[in-house]
């Protein structure tokens, strides 16, 4: 159950799409299975007390997580009878997020998370390249990528405790002032987004996770370092499966007025000891740059510091400078764990837009 909730948040905030204060129980015959990203769905014909049949869409997780837990598209078949318990969608759609799926003919519970503990990896020093710099990617001949972040929200690093869920929805809206030094308009927008449970989040519609957001998303990211041509590619495993180019050839940071504004901006990096410092400007205003709905403008300038403190740990620190949105620059961050011996799996957000966005 926990896995299902976590998997769904891969692209959408469950709290925006589903009503956790209500429950729904459905029994019926499976008519279709969409084993695609960002959320796997099956469709089930449910007969009500009057004999009328209605087709429900049931979201039951993300294929990557489901497959990691041993589930396959063949775990369920068209024509199977199932009983589903879950959270109904907000609004009139006949849609639910499954918290339990039971196959009638066997009584087996389907799509249950394995909850396998994360394997402990022996501590090692960070790998280094021939030039002595820390490698942010895997050493030669090895596989691996950066996976689960220690936090999925960005707040100013003041030490304050701010209860919120993993989507960034505050437990107490009065805590908004502790999140970041908002200008009045930005605080009002942030609170509006919070009160409406992030329903307008462009990320929910597969828009790119620009800003810091690709470091908060599931399915990780990978550095591909190419010092010989003065750049580092950052391959993004989640969201729209995009990439960033961080130029490390000494060029100055771009000037916003001369840039085509984009979701990921234009990045220039330099080494400060064992830390890669990346300045990025040139963001457009078509996305939310972090979970939770913090606003930004085209003036956004991010200074990111990537420090591989040991083989398995990446410390990520970001300073947000957007004088049109915040009263001063501010800093937050988290750590990210190395996923050894694996590659980023194929994930594209858009595949079942038909099921999730148009229905």
């Amino acid at each position, binding site marked *: 159950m926990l896995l299902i909730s976590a998997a769904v948040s891969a692209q959408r905030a469950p709290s925006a799409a589903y009503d956790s204060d209500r429950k729904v129980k459905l029994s019926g015959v499976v008519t279709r299975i969409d084993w695609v990203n960002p959320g796997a769905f099956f469709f089930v014909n449910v007969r009500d007390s009057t004999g009328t049949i209605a087709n429900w869409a049931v979201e039951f997780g993300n294929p990557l997580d489901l497959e990691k837990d041993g589930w396959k598209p063949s775990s369920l078949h068209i024509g199977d009878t199932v009983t589903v318990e879950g959270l109904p969608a907000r609004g009139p759609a006949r849609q639910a997020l499954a918290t339990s799926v039971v196959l009638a003919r066997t009584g087996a519970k389907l799509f249950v998370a394995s909850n396998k503990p994360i394997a402990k990896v022996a501590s090692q020093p960070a790998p280094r390249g021939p030039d002595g710099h820390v490698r942010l990617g895997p050493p030669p001949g090895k596989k691996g990528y950066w996976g689960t972040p220690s936090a999925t929200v960005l707040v100013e690093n003041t030490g304050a405790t701010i209860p919120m869920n993993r989507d960034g929805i505050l437990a107490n809206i009065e805590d908004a002032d502790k999140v970041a030094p908002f200008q009045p308009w930005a*605080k009002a927008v942030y609170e509006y987004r919070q009160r*409406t449970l992030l*329903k307008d989040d*462009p990320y929910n519609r597969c828009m790119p996770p620009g800003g810091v957001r690709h470091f908060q998303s599931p399915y990780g990211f990978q550095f591909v370092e190419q010092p010989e041509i003065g750049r580092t590619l950052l391959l993004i495993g989640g969201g729209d499966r995009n990439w960033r180019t961080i130029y490390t050839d000494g060029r100055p940071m771009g000037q916003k007025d001369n840039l085509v504004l984009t979701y990921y901006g234009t990045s220039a990096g330099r080494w400060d000891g064992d830390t890669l410092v990346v300045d990025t400007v040139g963001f457009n205003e*078509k996305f939310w740059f972090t979970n939770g709905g913090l606003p930004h403008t085209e003036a956004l300038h991010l200074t990111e510091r990537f420090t591989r403190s040991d083989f398995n740990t990446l410390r990520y620190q970001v300073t947000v400078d957007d*004088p049109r949105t915040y009263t001063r620059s501010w800093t937050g961050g988290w750590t990210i764990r190395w996923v050894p011996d694996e590659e980023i799996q194929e994930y594209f957000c858009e595949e079942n*837009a038909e099921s999730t966005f148009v229905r």
Partner: protein
Amino acid sequence: MLRQVFQLGCLLACLLAYMGVAVSGFAQQGHPLTGTWNGDWGTAPEHRTQLTIVMTWDGKEVKSVINPGPDSAAGSVSVDVVDWTVRIAADLKDPSGKPVHVVADGKLEDLGSYHRTISGTWRQGGATGDFKLTRE
């Protein structure tokens, strides 16, 4: 023939569905007033004057250009973010070329929507009417 109509219908439905996603995707998510707003004002439904207002937020104030082009005018904009009421004031020219002062008091609606709107009362010289602007 029926098949062609059906195919056309499917094509149109797909196009609309695609546009529904795409339009949401291109929404401007920064300061809610930033952007180009189109609409009209008038003293009656049959007496309408088209309006285009371009607003930008520089971090301290919202600036506006009313009807960009040869007859454009700069307007001052104030906004109360508590209830998102907006006042736009400017000196325009009437059809005869005479200067005329304009004050528009409206309310921003559908804050999270790409096609958010501002509507309210438009006072131009001695005339009072209503206006509605939609962010394009």
